[in-house]
């Protein structure tokens, strides 16, 4: 269903701009929480812009766990497999793949903290 303007992203941007506008007028705890609120809205905007594509995550989980039931918590299953030592001989491969997984998360949460090798357009580490 289509909606009238503003778009979803514009709505979130409006909220963030308002919070940014009032934050300097606040003090102490309220100011800190306003800055956090602005940060959270920006995460939401990036997450929505990403479109919720989890194909890379599903491919990674399938690579280590094989086919899984729809709705299964694949990350929990992967965590259990690692803890049980069943993937010890694939440590280096996992280190790289889990780095890529976390990089995808950080691109949504705080892309500015990524190392140059993981910025958009950079080579994968």
């Amino acid at each position, binding site marked *: 269903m289509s909606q009238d303007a503003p778009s979803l992203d514009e709505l979130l941007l409006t909220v963030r701009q308002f919070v940014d506008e009032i934050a300097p007028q606040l003090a*102490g*705890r309220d100011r*800190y*929480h*306003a800055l*956090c*609120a602005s*940060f*959270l809205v920006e*995460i939401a905007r990036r997450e929505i812009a990403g479109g919720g594509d989890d194909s890379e995550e599903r491919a990674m989980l399938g690579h280590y766990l094989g086919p899984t039931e729809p709705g299964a*918590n694949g*990350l*929990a299953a*992967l*965590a*259990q497999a*690692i*803890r049980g*030592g069943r993937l*010890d001989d694939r*440590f280096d491969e*996992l*280190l790289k793949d*889990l*780095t890529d*997984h*976390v*990089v995808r*998360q*950080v691109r949504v*949460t*705080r892309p500015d*903290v*990524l*190392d140059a*090798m993981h910025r958009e357009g950079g080579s994968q*580490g």
Partner: protein
Amino acid sequence: MSQKEQKSSSAAALGATITEGLRAAVVRRFGTEAGIDNVVFTTVGGSNLTVLFDLIDGAARRRLVFRQETIVPENSPFLDPSRQFRVLQLLHPEGLPVPEPIFEFDADDSLARAYVVAFVDGESLPRRLLDAPNFAPARQRFCAQAGEFLGRLHALDPAPAEFLADFPDSIDPIAATMGRIDRWGVSLPALELAVRWLERNRPSNAPRRLLHGDFRTGNMLMDEQGIRAVLDYECAHLGAPMEDLGWLCLRSFRFGHVDKPVGGFGPREPFYAAYAAASGKAVDPEEVRWWEIFGFIRWAHHNVMQMYGHVTGARRSTAFAACGRNIALIEYELLMTLQGHYT
């Protein structure tokens, strides 16, 4: 009454209850002529209430700090206030820069889970300490002072701190940390991979010493000359000395100064040298690195705790919500450190 008015009215009632409880506790200990004045409620600390006040005892007036644990998180990783107070009672007579413990609340007081220490003036905000021009001399001294503090702490006989022996982090810090993450119902493959690495690369048995447990930028008061008091004993436990060194050097606690591994203040060499001089024990940099890998797991665990408090509704706030998303940032630093990209 509006919601805002109700909130401020209940805050005022709480303030009056605390002030009265504090006054009664002071009279119990210092006599009916004693009193309190200049009471200031601060907002520092997520699950602790901190109140500054003057103790008036005859002609003498002394600034003190009341600290009360107000929220005990489910599955808490923190020491109870009574044992925190006992740690301070061990450290202060040794001449270490810690707040002087004054008294602990007991069953005959109206307030519980609380103690009083001497006020120490100083700055604790990392950004100011690391960036403000007036703290430049303190920054110069920090690495040596931090090394000396930990060296002296770890040189103490651990026997009087045996009351910490049954704290889970004294028994096995990895099991304690991962056990809490499990109980919060969170699965993080990157942390599991790091645990496998830790298990395969575990250092040989280290001597067991009293550790601060949370010695990092933000948990100490400083002036322009350097460290005035080391605070926050909620995580004190017995363990391998290098754990405290690794925690201070954790990349997550460098506040933008990633090229200065010792808390964002400076290089490792003067820190390790001062530690060795004060403790009589050389630092093994590889063992410190092992504890830094563990430190990321532990810091992720703190953020899981805050996220859990938020999503379960126990302690909702924008900051605790952000902690949930902060976990991925910590995992990223952990994996980059494991691969040797970050040092």
